[in-house]
Structure formats: C-alpha cells, structure tokens
C-alpha cells in the first residue's frame, strides 16, 4: 500500500488553504431571517403542529357571520374571527405552520425595520416572535382548552398588521431602505451574525427544553386526541406505551378507548402508569381544571353512553360555542340515536367549515340509514356496550362511563361485562368484581381478570378453581407477593420506581397504582370532581 506523502511546499499550501478556509468560514455570514423562518416552521409544523391541529379541532370558523356571532360579539371579535379563519390551515400542520412561521418571520423583519435596530441590537427584532413561542409553550393546553382559539393567530396577525402600518409610515416619511428579507444584511459583522443565530438557537432550545421538562404531556395528549379522531387505535396504544411513565387522565382515557375498540382492555390496561400527575390546565374562569372536558364526551361515547356524550358535548358547546370536535361527536351521537334531523343540523354547520368534506361525506351517507350506522366498525363496537335499560345519570358515580360500569347488573354483550369487570378492578372494588364474575365461570378469562381473581383468592379461597388457565399465573403472582414485601411499608414512595419492573401487571396497580400520594406534583388539594378516582 502506498503511503501518501506531500512536499513541504504542498504542506504550506495546504496549511494556508485550510487557514483561509477557516477564515472564510469565520467570515461567512448566514442569512438569519430565512434560518429563523425555517426553525419556526419546524417548530410550528413538526414540533408543535399537533397542538395547533387540536386547537383547530377545539375551534370553529365559517364564513357565515351569523353562525360566528358568538365570536364576533366578543371584544375584538373581528380579530378573533380572522384568527380562527387562519387557524383552519392547521388541518394540515405543515400549511398552518408555514403561515405562522411566515407571520412570525415577517413580524421580526418589520420589527427590525421599524425599530431601526443597529446590527449589534438586531437580535431584539426576534423578541416578539420568540416571546410568542414561549408564551404558547408556557400555556400548553390553555391555548385551546376553554380558551379563545382565535388568539393563536389573532395576536401575530395584530402585531404584524401594526408593524406593517408602522413600516409604511416610516417608509413614506423617512424613505429608509428596507433591510433584506432573504439575503445577508451587509451591515452585520460575522460575529454579530453568528451571535444572533446562537441566541435564537439557545432561546428555541430553552423553550423546547421547558416544554419537555414542564409540559411533556401537552404534545403527547394532543397526538393521542388526533389519533382518536382518526380512529388510529394501534397508534394510540403505541404512543401511550412509549410514554407509559407519563400519567394523566386524557391519556388514560384515550388509551382505554383504543383498548376497548380493539378488544384488549382486559389485557393491556396497565401498560401505562395510572397515577394521574397534576396538569397545567385552566378553565374559562382561570382556575385549575381537572381536564375532564378533554375526554368526557369521548369517554361516554366510546363507553356506550350516547345520550350522556351528547349532553356533555352540549354543555361544553354552551360554554365555548360550537367547535369542530364537538360537532363531530354530536353528529355521531345523533346518528346513533337515529335523530336524523339533528345530525343534519350539525352536518349543515360542519359542511361550512373548510377542509371537513371527508368527515361530512362519510357521516352524511349514514343519514336515515340505520344499517350503515350499525355496520360502522366504531359504532358497532359501541352498540355492544349501550345500556339495556334507562336510568338516570345521577344514580351513578362520575365519570359516568366508570360509575355505570361499577353498578352494571345486566349487560348487552360480553364486552359490557368485560368493561364492567375492568372498571371494578381499576377502582379496586373486589366485592363488586366478584359479583360480576359468574358468567365467566368455566372459561379462561382475559389476563387482567385472572390476576384479579388471584388477588381475590386471598379472601375467597378456592375461587380460582372455577376458571381455567389461572394456575399458570400463580407462580408469577407468588413471586410478585414475595418481591414487594420490602416496599409495602411505603407503597406511595416506591410506586414510581417499581413501575418499570411491573408495568402491565395488575397486582402491581392494585398495591401501588393510583394512590393519591404517588402523584407527581400532588399538593394534597383535590382538584378533581370525579367520583371514581
């Protein structure tokens, strides 16, 4: 093999060339605005796109000002109206993100122009845009939850409009030349240029770091809700399991819905932690909210409680006005109740919302077609767990989809029985669990039910003999009981560390899961109204 050699002259040339390369690199200036645009687009479309997408679902915009009167009659209603219109582009996050990034970048450009910033202070022009990103990230769910979603685009729109007017005035009177938008500002030194870039990168990283550290659940929950709307049940399971240490009710509900829809509720329910950490979420009155409006209509709907889902949706609509999400669930509920005119009413409004043609076409075809409603996979699954008889919501603990199943004495299907048994196990009410076991006698129950039977065996010796297949789980259960002995004196204290080891195992949940003191951020103040924890 020949060794490469170089003459001293060549070396000199190489050294001087590398030095000049380094020098030229150090002297190279980067067009900051395009980079800023690219970074904000990535943030708005890829990183935070799902949150904005869900914000759109929690909002509505139609051209008809009569329908939008509830927005227009608010203070600055016209701006909220425009903001909502822009938010519609988030049906496709890349598109909504593109508009938002353009607005933020254009705002930064104009801010620099209007404030006549010298190169060393030019970083300040990015301050409004970066502040916007920081504020949005700080608020998390609050940007759309019982909030005025028109502000998401409304605020950048107002800022941009003001800056445009300001810039036009400056341009008209001082004839100051506009700085380059896509090119490199000639008055910046390379150092100033790189410093700007570094500060922007650090700010964005800090914001994203804050989001990952303080609001990690926001993007996850929004992605789950997105998948729920798209009926991506396997996607929900995958995402929830990959974030299994994170624990909050909206996630647990979405995960449970996915399991119910795929018939796995009694097999995989405990693959995620169910301790319910405190969430940063506030209602219209700015007090801390238990987040139940995020999942109550859906929980009731997928639990088979169509009337209650319709009611919960209606209550939310009273407070926030119609939203795409509420209209969609109400359309489905109305179809399932065979209230065709009601479904048509909501469809008439949804048809006016941009980009909702696919949904309207699918469910519009079900109008006055009970056969199509009942053969829809999602609705057919829900039909299996509808109540057999009428009763009143107030007779059950809340949330209803749990409370009803705790009291279930007669079900429509095996699915209804399994759901009821799972709720009994979830609430750790073993007597109720045992009362409902009889129909499974002589069969091999699903895994979680078997583990529940083994747990009940302690106080009810011999009960497991009525079922087949349980003996295989006995050694695992005995080993678990032995292993947890050292931790039993302080169960809340050890719950979190034991979770990875016993993830998915019901007896772990029974002893260590869903204990008030285990909750991350638990303050001792109950903020939830839920009857069943």
């Amino acid at each position: 093999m020949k060794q490469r050699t170089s003459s001293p002259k060549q070396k000199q040339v190489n050294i001087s060339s590398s030095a000049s390369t380094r020098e030229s690199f150090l002297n190279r200036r980067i067009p900051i605005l395009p980079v800023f645009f690219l970074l904000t687009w990535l943030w708005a479309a890829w990183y935070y796109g799902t949150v904005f997408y869900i914000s759109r679902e929690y909002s509505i915009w139609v051209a008809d000002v009569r329908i939008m009167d509830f927005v227009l009659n608010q203070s600055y209603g016209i701006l909220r109206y425009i903001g909502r219109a822009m938010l519609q582009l988030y049906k496709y996050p890349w598109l909504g993100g593109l508009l938002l990034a353009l607005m933020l970048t254009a705002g930064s450009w104009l801010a620099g122009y209007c404030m006549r910033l010298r190169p060393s202070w030019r970083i300040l022009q990015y301050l409004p845009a970066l502040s916007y990103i920081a504020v949005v990230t700080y608020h998390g769910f609050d940007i759309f939850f019982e909030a005025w979603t028109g502000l998401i685009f409304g605020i950048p729109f107002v800022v941009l409009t003001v800056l445009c007017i300001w810039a036009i005035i400056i341009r008209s009177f001082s004839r100051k030349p506009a700085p380059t938008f896509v090119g490199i500002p000639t008055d910046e030194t390379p150092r100033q240029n790189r410093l700007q870039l570094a500060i922007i990168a650090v700010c964005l990283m800090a914001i994203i770091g804050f989001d990952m550290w303080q609001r990690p659940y926001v993007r996850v929950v929004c992605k789950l809700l997105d998948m729920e709307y798209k009926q991506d049940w396997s996607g929900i399971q995958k995402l929830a399991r990959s974030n299994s240490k994170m624990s909050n009710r909206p996630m647990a509900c979405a995960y449970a819905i996915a399991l119910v829809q795929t018939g796995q509720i009694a097999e995989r329910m405990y693959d995620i932690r169910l301790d319910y950490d405190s969430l940063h979420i506030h209602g219209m009155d700015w007090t801390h909210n238990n987040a139940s409006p995020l999942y109550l209509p859906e929980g009731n709907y997928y639990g088979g409680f169509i009337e209650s889902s319709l009611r919960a949706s209606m209550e939310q609509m009273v407070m926030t006005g119609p939203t795409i999400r509420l209209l969609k669930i109400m359309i489905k509920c109305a179809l399932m109740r065979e209230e065709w005119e009601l479904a048509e009413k909501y469809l008439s409004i949804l048809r006016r919302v941009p980009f909702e043609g696919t949904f309207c076409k699918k469910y519009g075809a079900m109008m006055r077609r009970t056969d199509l409603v009942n053969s829809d996979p999602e609705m057919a699954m829900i039909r299996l767990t509808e109540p057999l008889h009428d009763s009143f919501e107030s007779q059950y603990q809340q949330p209803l989809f749990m409370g009803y199943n705790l009291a279930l004495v007669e079900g429509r299907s095996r699915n209804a029985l399994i759901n009821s048994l799972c709720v009994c196990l979830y609430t750790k009410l073993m007597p109720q669990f045992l009362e409902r076991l009889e129909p499974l006698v002589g069969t091999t129950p699903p895994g979680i039910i078997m583990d529940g039977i083994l747990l009940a065996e302690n106080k009810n010796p011999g009960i497991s003999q009525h079922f087949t297949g349980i003996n295989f789980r006995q050694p695992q259960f005995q080993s678990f009981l032995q292993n947890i002995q050292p931790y039993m004196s302080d169960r809340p204290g050890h719950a979190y560390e034991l979770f990875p080891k016993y993830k998915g195992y019901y007896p772990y949940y029974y002893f260590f899961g869903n204990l008030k003191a285990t909750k991350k951020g638990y303050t001792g103040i109950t903020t939830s109204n839920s009857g069943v924890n």
Partner: protein
Amino acid sequence: MKLLTLSKYIISLCILVVVVGCKPKAEVPVQFVEADIEVNIYPDYKDIVVPPNIAPLNFIVRDSIATAYVVQFTGKGQELLAAADDDAVIRIDTAEWRSLLMGNKGNDVSVDIYAKRPNGWIHYKPYKISIAEEPIDAFLSYRLIEPGYELYRQLGIYQRNLTTFEEKPIYENNREYDDNNNHCINCHNYRMGSTESMLFHVRSNHGGTIIVQNGKAHKIQLKDSTIIASGVYPSWHPTVNLVAFSTNKTGQAFHLYHPEKVEVLDAQSDLLLYDVTNNEVGHIIRTSDDLETFPCWSPDGRTLYYCSAGVKHLINPIVPDSLISQHLILKYDSIRYNLMSIPFDPESRSFGTPKVVINAAEEEKSISVPRVSPDGRYVLYTKGDYGQFHIWHKSSDLWVMDLEKDTCYALAESNSPDVDSFHSWSSNGRWFVFSSRRMDGNYTRPYIAYFDKQGRAHKAFVLPQEDPEWNILLLKSYNVPELSKDAVLISPKELHQCIYETEGEQAAYKANPTAIVNLDGTTGASPKVDAEEVLSDGLKQ
C-alpha cells in the same frame, strides 16, 4: 365595539351585495311538464292559514336535481313571482308580499312552483295558503338559549317584529365570561299582551325579579324565609297590580337510554301573590304534599288557574325531607298534574276554595301551562304522559278546554309527534304561538297556528325567517315565546343599569288570610291514599 359592529355590517353588506347582485330572474317558464308530485319545501308552509300581517314566508325548495326555481303566488287579481337559482332559497319581496296578503284577506292564495331539471322545467302540484281576516299581535318575544341543561353562558331575551324580519334584543346578559357578572335571565311575561307591564327574573349574580312599569325598571327580591324559593312562573293580574307566581324547588336528572333527554321536576312548589304597588308578597297556596305551579289568571281576573300534583302517595312517609327529591325522581313517570282553579275576588283580594277543573291524573295524563284565551272561553294547555316540564316530553300536545261547553279536545291539526308546549295567545284570540321541537327533536322553534271561531286550530307553521335555513343553522332554542301587541320600549341599557346597579328591594311578606295553607295535607289534587298501604309498599322496596 363600534368598530366591530361596523365590521359586521360591512361583511353583511358585502354578502348582501353579492346576493342581490345575483338575484335570479322571476319569470314563469313558457314550457314545462306537469309533474304529478308534491313539492318538498322547507319549512313546510303548504296549506296553512296565515295572518295578513305576517312577514314573507321565505322557503327552500328541496329538489336534488333542479338548478333553478320559480314560484308564482296567485291571489284575487294579484300575482307575485319569486325565483331562486341552485341554492333553492325563495326570497319573497316584502312590499309585494304585504300587498298580496292585504288584498286577499279571507281568501286563498294559490302557490305554483316550477323547477328546472336537466330535462326541462316541471310544475309541481300547487298548494294554497289561506289568508285570515284577523292579524296576529305584531311582536313576539323569546329567550334565545342553547338547549343545554345545566350550564348557561351568553343568552338574551329578544323581540321579533312579526310583520318584518327585524329582531332586537330586549336584554342580553354579559357576552364575555365573567365570574362576577355571569347571570341567567328567564320567565319574561307581560300583562294581557301589553308591554306596559313586564317582568323577568335574573338568576345568579345580580339576581332578582325585574319589574317594568311606566317605562321604568326596578328590581325586587321575593324570597322570604317562609317561601321555598324565589318567584318562578308568573301571571300578571289583568285588572289589579298583582302578579301570581309559582315558587318551585326544581331539580333535574338526565336519562341514559331514553328518547327524551332530561327530566325536570319539582320537589316542592307553592303559589304566591305579589302586590306590585306595595311590594308585598304572600302565599296563595302553601302545602307540603301537593305541587302547585303554572298560575294563570282568567281575563276577568276572578279565577286563577294552575296545575297541581299530589305526590304524597309516591313518597314513603319514612323518607326524610332531604331525600324526597331523590325518591321522586325514581317515580318521575307517576307524577301527574291536574288543572285546578281557585276563585279570587280582586276587591277584597280573597281566595275561595280550589277545585279540580280537569282530573288528568285519573286518565294517567298530566297537564301544564294553562293559558286562558282573551275572551275567557278556552283554556289552552299542554297535556303529556307525566310531569310538568312538558317542553322535554315527546308525549306533550296542545289541548283546549271549552269552558262554555265543558269539553276538552286535542288541537290535532297543530300538534306533532314531538314536543308541543309553551304557548301564548294573540290578544284577539285568533292566533297562538307555541314552542315545538318537531323540527329536529332538540331545538325549540316558535310555531304559529290559527284558532278559528269554532275553536279549531289549524296547521301550524314555523316563524318565518329572512333566510329560511337559519332555522337549521341557529344553535339556540326559542324559549318562552310571548306575543305582545306593542314593542318593549325600555332599552337594554336601562335594564342593564337596573340589573347591575341595584340590589333589589326586598318584598315584605304579608300573609293572606284566605290563602290555602296546609302544611300537613293537600288541596284536593292528591289522590286519596291509604297510609298503611304506602308504608307497606315503601318497606317492600
């Protein structure tokens, strides 16, 4: 705010310019095929009787393949043409419509509709509209509120001029959420169809009853330690400055699997008499075992009609008072109200002995909202299978009692399979407006029906809208429609001042010596009960 209103107007103006600019030409086609099919129009304005002063009955023709429409109204020597393109919305010229109606009072107008289909124009089977001689009271006020059950947010009482499409707010609550100012308003009511005396209630923040007389509003507080709740359903006395109120302890429960959505019921209710001039309140009826509600004066002011249900037989005597409502809800479909009346002497302000006018419970039915016709001959009421909140009962229908002939009958022509309830007479007694959920089962819309001299009601039609589709798009219910001869003159601003800036004067409680007070018994509405039977029945549960 002015900027916002201006913006709204600009947007509306732009839409109007586009709409008017594209107005299709109204011309009866020269060539068409006679199609032997009924036209499908929304709302259903076919074969109805209309008042001569009603606003144009704009409608939508529902034909999935047609692309243009022409409508020809033909009356006595008069013709009116209207047209629509593929949006199928027939908008009728107001001036021409008015002229057509005025020129055809007491006659029929024939309606011919032509539709342009791919193979050419067709002519549907014509239908007719009958124009009555008698006008309807020109103003209709109602509350617009979502048919929610527990929560409320933005709502208001509005007044619609029935001769045009003009709608004005009488009063709107706070548009933006505000914990300190959120409030609900309900039960607006006028004396004998005149807005000179008006009242409504404010609940929650700024609560009280707002009384408007002589163009001035003031707030009062009716609640007293002897009164179970504040005043609820009102009825102005026709000649003396008095108002009869019910006072109700109301609860609600939500069905899980039922065609109806909610059951609203009273755990307790009594009747009150409020003296507006002296700001004094006292009981008319105060009982522990009967539920009295929906008071209504006869036009001569000498009889007070109301509804009453005996619930003693439904409650186990061992049940403590605090649990009565929970027990009652489980027997909601056994609570039945009779129509009662009690004589009243306006001079001495004394009441006589109550009597059962219609024993609905006996036929396992229940009556609510009695309203006596202005001539005093008919009592219009709602009859359903059970309960009193018939606005959520699909079994509810409108009935009348002919007090002269002592007969009762359903207003079959006006009723529908869905909810038909809360009603209000026009001052001439020839029209009534009522709430119905027939359109979609959920959102109430006001329906207008003609009540002829023979006491027969005719097919009802929905309140006309400038854009007929608005009945579908509006996500609020028309609640408590009340007709009035004149417009409410007090401004929303004055009402706002009264509501926000006054606490409300406490009404003094003054017992009426002739009031029916029976805290251990009933007024006659309760079925006779065997106490031992109830007890043993209760223990069985």
